[in-house]
């Protein structure tokens, strides 16, 4: 580089100096008011029912070629509670999540070690399509299919057996799934409209309805709100919390406040290792590991 040329225009943030960007005033309890949800750190009500273990990983390792993405992780996923996987980017959260429904098997270079059990049975012994019906998944970006709202929700129900179910037969299940996903009121009059014409938040709730229609027992959420506005985020978080009594839920999130709002248990991962696992309040308020303490206090990430 020419020594006389000015340094590249990188915005440097100096830790000592107060940031110069305009910020809303800090209120009494030290938290900046969040646009919405109204009270960002409000804990959602805890599940009443006792948690039942549905899935567990035993010394699960996943590698992409030579690179180890998940290293000897043992975890259990319970119905009746929400498990949040947190950690910095590239720490293996999403890989771990994608192993649970064997979606990671689609990556040619990926190899998996250890065991994953669903209700005590090794997932490798399942027919993969059956496993994925029992373990649903929601993605970071809303991805409705290019068809009507009705057909999106009915998609998982169709082509199941040799007989193709008719629209009338499917309707109750579709309506039920839309209702559970909290979308029914908004779309009940135009179920035949194209799904891709919905707003981003509605699309994501449609994707929830699409997953719920096949009656999954476990639902995997991969940063489901990262592309959404705060109000849609709140709606989806409420849906997640209301579903946890019937479905075991695992959520990967970069948003620590979101983990605090929805999670009952939190697993903190770092560079493929499970560093800390415990009840959400305990992990956030009195973490054991130094790494966890740094991460939840915003030291890195």
């Amino acid at each position, binding site marked *: *580089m020419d*020594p006389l040329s*000015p*340094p*590249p*225009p*990188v915005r*440097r943030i*100096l830790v000592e100096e107060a940031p110069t960007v305009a910020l809303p005033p800090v209120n009494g309890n030290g938290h900046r008011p969040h646009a919405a949800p109204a009270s960002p750190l409000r804990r959602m009500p805890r599940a009443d029912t006792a948690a039942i273990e549905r899935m567990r990983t035993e010394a699960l390792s996943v590698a992409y070629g030579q690179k180890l993405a998940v290293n000897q992780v043992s975890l259990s996923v319970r119905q009746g509670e929400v498990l949040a996987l947190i950690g910095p980017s590239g720490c293996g959260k999403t890989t771990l999540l994608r192993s649970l*429904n064997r*979606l990671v098997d*689609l990556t040619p270079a990926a190899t998996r070690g250890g065991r994953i059990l669903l209700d005590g049975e090794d997932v490798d012994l399942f027919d993969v*399509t*059956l*496993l*994925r*019906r029992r373990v*649903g*998944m929601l*993605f*970071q*970006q*809303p*991805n409705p*299919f*290019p*068809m009507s709202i009705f057909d999106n929700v009915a*998609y*998982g129900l169709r*082509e199941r057996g040799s007989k193709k179910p008719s629209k009338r037969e499917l309707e109750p299940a579709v309506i039920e799934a839309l209702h559970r996903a909290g979308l029914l009121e908004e779309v009940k009059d135009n179920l035949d409209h194209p799904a*891709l014409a919905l707003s981003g938040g509605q699309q994501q709730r449609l*994707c929830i309805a*699409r*997953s719920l229609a*096949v009656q999954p027992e476990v639902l995997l959420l991969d940063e489901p709100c990262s*592309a959404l506005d705060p109000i849609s985020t709140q709606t989806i978080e409420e849906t997640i919390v209301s579903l946890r009594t019937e479905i075991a839920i695992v959520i990967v999130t970069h948003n620590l406040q979101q983990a605090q709002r929805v999670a009952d248990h939190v697993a903190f991962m770092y560079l493929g290792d499970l560093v800390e696992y415990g009840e959400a309040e305990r992990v956030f308020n009195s973490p054991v590991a130094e790494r966890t303490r740094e991460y939840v206090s915003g030291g890195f990430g």
Partner: protein
Amino acid sequence: MNAPAQAPAPPPPPVASPPAHQRGEESWSRGDKLGVGLAWAAGIGLCLIAAAIVIFMLVRGFQYLSLSLLTTHPLPSLEQSQSGGFLDPIEGTVILTILGTLIAAPIGVGIAVWLSEYGRPSWLARAVESGVEIVAGTPSIVLAIFGLLVFQQSFFGFLSFTAEGNAVFGRSFFTAGAIMGLIALPLIVGSTREALHSIPAHVREASYALGKDRISTIRRVLLPASRRGIGTGITLGMGRIVGDTAIVVVLLGASLQIQPENGTPVWGLLKGTGSTLTTYVYNNSPAGEGGAPEKAYAAAFVLLIVVIFLNFAVDLIARGKEPGWTR
């Protein structure tokens, strides 16, 4: 790269002059100005050439085109008033385009889906890819004589006239349509592949995550999502078929009238020979054997209208709203 190593680095000094895009064109170097000028000249020149072609053909076309030309069969006569119109070439163009598209579309979409969604073993995928590229780059006259060689084998005798002594003629709507399908194929493969490629991976995964296999994902999600790309490819392919001359001369016989084989109506027609607008223009132009440039202009005008229409169709298809997924 010494400067960034000094930590903590001071914030960069404010830049005195506004960024380049606010300074206007006065400060551009001479070379840049010359480049912009040349770019403008090239663009305007191209528009002028296109406009000249259209206007010239429009004037000539209106001068010579009449309804009777479109609706009468061409007749062998030296008298221009007796030689009829070009109904048969129009029919020939339509039949050949339909036939070629019907052959190319399923094969082309199939190849694109296989390349994009399976592509294994990879050596075979590479071979198919370069095969498609070679077909795309081969002049149609070469494909045409190759097709003639193939379709004159007695094995393909059922596709064209057979003379006494089992000599296979090799020229028919079937054989020309097959090679026309070949020249349309690369366009359909390319356009479909591009459309499939633009569907984010998580959309496929969402379908797999609902317990669907690859086949139903392709059928119910990926093909509906790429129908615009498929439509664009098919329309581009139709444009190529409509405009090709060499294959018609070599493989359709370029006979003045459509000559169906006696027998079953449709099958006999497709086994027969004929001509298209392109060969009609060629044969009637001063370069060809006939000296009827007026009719050549009229037919060329019709051909131009068809091609312009296909171009607009491509634009319309491609400009429509694609499913809006984020990667």
